[in-house]
C-alpha cells in the first residue's frame, strides 16, 4: 500500500503538471503563469512538456515565406525562398523550413518588441546564408501571405482575386547583412568561447 500511495502522489503531481502545461502558455492568467512558469517550470522544461497545445489557435495562421538574394563575387546572385516544395523534400523537411519562416514572427503584444526579435532571427538566417554561399552581401525578408476568405465572404474588390494574388503578400521585415557583419559575429563568438575556455566568465 505504501508504494501505491507514493506512486499515486507522483501520478497526481504529473497529471497536474500535464494540465498546467496546457494552461500556462503565454497569454494565460497570472495564477496559471505563476505555477507553470515558476513552481513547476523545472519539471515541465525537463520533460519537454512546456510548449502548449494551441494547434491552429486562436486562429489559423497566415502563410509565411523567407525570400533572399545572396551576392557572391564573380557569380550571378543566388535567389531563393523557403519553404519551397521544389527545393525541400520530403514534406517533413519542407515543414521544418516552413516553421523557420513562421517562428521568426514572434508573438508579443508590443509590435516593437516582436519586431526586434524577428530581426534577430532574420539576421541569424542571413548570416547563415552568407556563410553557406560564401557571399558578400545578403538581402533577406520575411513575407506574410494572407489567406483570402471564400469568394462569397470577400469584399467586392477582392472577389476575383486568386489565393496567390500578389496583393495577398506583404513584406513584414527586411534585413541586409554583409561579409563584415558575418566576420564581426564570428570574432565575437570566438572571443566568448575563448573567455569560456579560459574560465573568464565562470
Amino acid at each position: 500500500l505504501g508504494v501505491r500511495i507514493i506512486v499515486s502522489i507522483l501520478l497526481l503531481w504529473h497529471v497536474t503538471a500535464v494540465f498546467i502545461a496546457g494552461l500556462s502558455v503565454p497569454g494565460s492568467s497570472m495564477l496559471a503563469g505563476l505555477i507553470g512558469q515558476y513552481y513547476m517550470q523545472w519539471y515541465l522544461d525537463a520533460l519537454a512538456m512546456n510548449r502548449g497545445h494551441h494547434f491552429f489557435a486562436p486562429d489559423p495562421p497566415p502563410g509565411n515565406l523567407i525570400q533572399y538574394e545572396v551576392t557572391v563575387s564573380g557569380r550571378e546572385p543566388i535567389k531563393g525562398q523557403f519553404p519551397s516544395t521544389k527545393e525541400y523534400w520530403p514534406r517533413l523537411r519542407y515543414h521544418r523550413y516552413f516553421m523557420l519562416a513562421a517562428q521568426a514572427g514572434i508573438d508579443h503584444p508590443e509590435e516593437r518588441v516582436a519586431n526586434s526579435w524577428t530581426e534577430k532571427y532574420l539576421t541569424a538566417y542571413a548570416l547563415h546564408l552568407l556563410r553557406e554561399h560564401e557571399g558578400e552581401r545578403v538581402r533577406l525578408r520575411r513575407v506574410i501571405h494572407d489567406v483570402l476568405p471564400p469568394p462569397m465572404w470577400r469584399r467586392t474588390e477582392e472577389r476575383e482575386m486568386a489565393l496567390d494574388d500578389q496583393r495577398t503578400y506583404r513584406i513584414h521585415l527586411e534585413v541586409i547583412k554583409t561579409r563584415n557583419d558575418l566576420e564581426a559575429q564570428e570574432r565575437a563568438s570566438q572571443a566568448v568561447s575563448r573567455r569560456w575556455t579560459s574560465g573568464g566568465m565562470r
Partner: protein
Amino acid sequence: MIRAVRNYASDAWEAWNDFWFTAANPATLSAIRVCTGAMLFYTHFIWSFDLEAFFGQRGWLPPKLTRELEAFMGGPDAISRWNWSYFNSIDSPTLLWLVHVAALVIFFLLTIGLFSRVMAVLAFVAAVSYSNRITPGAYFGLDTINCMLAMYLMVGPCGARYSADRLWRLRRGAPVRVDASVWANVAIRLIQVHMCVIYLFSGIGKVRGGSWWFGEAAWYSFANLEYQTWDLTWLADHPLLINFMTHLTVFWELGYAALIWPRLTRPWMLFLAVLMHGGIIFALGMPTFGLVMLIGNLAFVSPQFVQKVFDPIARRISLAVVGGEGQGGGAASNRPVSPQPAPPVGAR
C-alpha cells in the same frame, strides 16, 4: 456525516485504484512502441538532410539566440530554463554526425524492441534533445507528441510483445503467455490522460479565436497555400459545409476528454479522430503530425483489437525467427493475457 465522507473517500480510492492499478494486457503499449519507434526513426532521419544547418553552432538557429528568446518568453518572473539538449555542447561536425547516427540506431532498436526499456529511456533523451535544440525556431506539434510518447514508453513494459526482446525470451524457453502488467496500465492511462489534456486545450485555444467561432477556420486552414497539399478550395461553394467542419473540429476537441471514456461514444470519437487527422495528413501537408496523433489515440484501442491486427504479423516473424509458437502466435497465444492477476505495484 462522517460515515458518508468516509464512504465517499473509500469509493474514490477504489476508483483511483481501478483506474491506475488494474493490471492490463501490454499489447496496446507494445503496439504504441512499434509505431512510436518507427515515427521517431523517420522524423529524425529527415534531419540528416540538414543536420549541421539546424543543429550546428553556426546554423540557422544559433543556440544563444534560441535560449535568449526562450528566457524572454518565460517572462521576468521565470526562473532559469531547464530546456536541456546535448546538442548545445556539440561543436564538432564529426561528433554531431556520430550522435545523430547513434540516435537513429536507438530509434530503430526501439522499433524492433531490442532492449526495449533501455532504448525507451535513450529515445526519450534523444528526442527531447532534438526538440529543445530547435525551439523556438523549427519545432512543431510533432516534436511535442514524439517526446510525450517516448516518455510514457519508459513507464511500462513496452517490449512485452511484438519485440526482439520477446523473441529472445521465447528462444530461451520462456512461456508463450504474456502476463498482464500494472505498469502497462499506468503507461496507457498516462497517454490517455495526456491526450485528453492536449485536445482540451487545443479546443479551448480555438474558442478564443474569431474564425473558429464564426465557422470560417476550416477554410483558412486548407486555403493556406503554404500548408495545402490537397486542394479543397472547391468547398468555397459550400459555406455551410465549411461552418460544419469548423464547428465539428472544435466540439470534437472540447468533447474528447469526456466522450472518449464511455464505451458507447468511444468508437465515434476515434472515428472522428481518424477523420480529423486524416484531413491533416492528406490536405494540410503534415502526414507525420497527423500520424503521431493517431498513434496517441491508439492508447484508447483495446488490447484485444490490437492483437487482432498485430498478432498475425508477429506470428509470421516469430515463426521465421523462432520456428514455433511465437509473439502471440499459436494456440497458446489466443489466451490474450495471464488469467492470474498481476502483483500490485511495488511487489515486482
